[in-house]
């Protein structure tokens, strides 16, 4: 299935799938643009956002502000809500027409459906849920006697596997585009440049419904006033050790005192104490706040995978051997029911004294 070097040379530019939902750009799109800009520099190329939807052209300026040099807009009534087939047709058609060397997609509930479908359609590799992307050589070290076979300017995609126990760095040396889905919350957005303009290209490959178009019978949005935990600077996170949904009150009080938000572990969501959108970890959200309180969280590897990049991790757990202490900067062995309310009072006093 390998492409010839001549064919590969035709593929240029770093492209980002600019996910939008309800005609609002998703945060992941800006994160990908930030990373794309970094990758484009050593490749001496530019950054293109692919914007797919219905009535979305007006979002191009937002994408320009976050680093897109060009915006390819695929606008069609069939693309109003996300559905696999018309979106895959749109993105695969853009790839076939414009031939990007790198195509980044967010590892969201949309991107993890769109990415594999598109990669199979354009017959290239796809690396899932990447946490590090960089430009480098493949193989990493030249093979003695075959130095000239080492390929340069390759996308090296690093991702965790085995529930976060191992990491692998993967390349896609003989096919284009090099495609990756990227975990939300891992890459950094740039400071938006107000008034930035991108070159806007409108492209419509035509949409003819076939057997692969599914029908949306109903859209049910979760009604929620919970702020996104991925944006929080301080998270007060509780696990099964908190004991009951009612007892989360002491965590909420602490969060209010210190200006943070409450999040939780998978066990808490599985017990029905808190909604899924508050879940940190491999099957929840990846967070990197300034301070992460892990309270009554044992620290299963799947949880740690979602919070270990936090600047300061403070763990409170009565089990001295809890694995959370292996990643905590400051670990306190003790009873959370006694410590947390007192901590809240002390912090209130400290804040008031300022």
């Amino acid at each position: 299935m390998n492409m010839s070097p001549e064919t590969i040379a035709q593929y240029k530019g770093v492209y980002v799938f600019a996910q939008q939902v309800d005609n609002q750009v998703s945060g992941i799109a800006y994160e990908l643009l930030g990373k794309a800009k970094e990758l484009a520099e050593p490749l001496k190329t530019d950054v293109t956002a692919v914007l797919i939807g219905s009535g979305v052209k007006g979002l191009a300026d937002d994408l320009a502000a976050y680093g897109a040099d060009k915006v390819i807009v695929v606008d069609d009534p069939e693309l109003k809500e996300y559905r696999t087939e018309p979106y895959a047709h749109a993105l695969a058609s853009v790839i076939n027409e414009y031939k990007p060397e790198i195509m980044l997609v967010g590892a969201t509930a949309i991107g993890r459906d769109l990415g594999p479908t598109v990669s199979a359609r354009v017959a290239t590799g796809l690396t899932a849920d990447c946490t590090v992307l960089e430009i480098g050589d493949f193989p990493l070290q030249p093979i003695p006697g075959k130095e000239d076979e080492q390929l340069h300017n390759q996308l090296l995609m690093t991702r965790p596997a085995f529930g976060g126990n191992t990491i692998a760095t993967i390349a896609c040396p003989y096919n284009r585009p090099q495609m990756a889905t990227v975990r939300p919350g891992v890459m950094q957005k740039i400071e938006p440049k107000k008034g930035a303009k991108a070159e806007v290209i409108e492209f419509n490959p035509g949409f003819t419904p076939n057997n692969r178009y599914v029908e949306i019978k109903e859209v049910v949005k979760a009604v929620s006033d919970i702020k996104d935990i991925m944006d929080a600077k301080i998270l007060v996170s509780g696990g099964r050790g908190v004991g009951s949904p009612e007892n989360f009150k002491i965590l909420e009080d602490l969060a209010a005192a210190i200006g943070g938000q409450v999040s939780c572990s998978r066990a808490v969501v599985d017990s029905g104490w808190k909604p899924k959108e508050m879940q940190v970890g491999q099957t929840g959200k990846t967070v990197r706040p300034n301070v992460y309180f892990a309270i009554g969280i044992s620290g299963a590897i799947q949880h740690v995978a979602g919070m270990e990049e936090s600047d300061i991790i403070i763990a409170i757990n009565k089990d001295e051997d809890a694995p959370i202490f292996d990643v905590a900067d400051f670990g306190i062995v003790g009873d959370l029911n006694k410590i947390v309310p007192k901590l809240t009072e002390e912090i209130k006093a400290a804040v008031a004294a300022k």
Partner: protein
Amino acid sequence: MKVVVCIKQVPDTKGGVKFNPDGTLDRGAMLAIMNPDDKAGLEAALRLKDQYGAHVTVLTMGLPKASDVLREALAMGADDAVLVTDRVLGGADTWATSTTLAGALRNLEYDLIITGRQAIDGDTAQVGPQIAEHLGIPVISYAQEIKIDGDKVIVKRQYDDRYHMLEAKMPCLITALSELNDPRYMTPGGIFDAVKADITTWGRADLKDVEDGNLGLNGSPTKIAKASDKVRKGAGEKVVPDSPEDAVSYIVGKLKEKHVI
């Protein structure tokens, strides 16, 4: 109605992760289990069997010992099992895995194909949608509920902040979330029959309409440049305070030191 469920044998990473003295993953010491999302997919298929008399075939690709999960599926109530195993299929990435499974599925009749959303070893969630693409059928990922209405399937599809009720004409591929249901246990009679059951075994030659260049390690567009065990940040300080007051003054001290408060 015919349903094929794609299942995978995976090492149990939940709670049972074992390390060698040098810090590498000790795969030999870890239990091999049926991937949880796949098991939910199988349960969904078995409920279609209970409700509509669907015929349920389970399909896996792997080493010969992967037949263990096929027998488990038979003991839960699946009707037939197919193992695809061949040395030339080894080292496959998701592209080559999906071309292989698509090659096997072309030999089978199906109205529905169900896969798990993702396997707990690779966590990619790619193989299901890629199979659908190779077969030219619709895919509905992240299924929370599955209902049948004549020749259509109605699926509750989960997104980050919403769900869609989707209707697709069969044949269709669905990827199942482990939240979909609680899988049933094997029955004693089922286990007894499953031990003796015939498992259809296919090799490379049995795959339909697949080129060699799309199979195994050589047919995998993604290549591993480096693999290593994750280096973690490592533990910081751990204290066992004498009283809650001591604990609080320790934490407040650290928060002040780091200019958080």
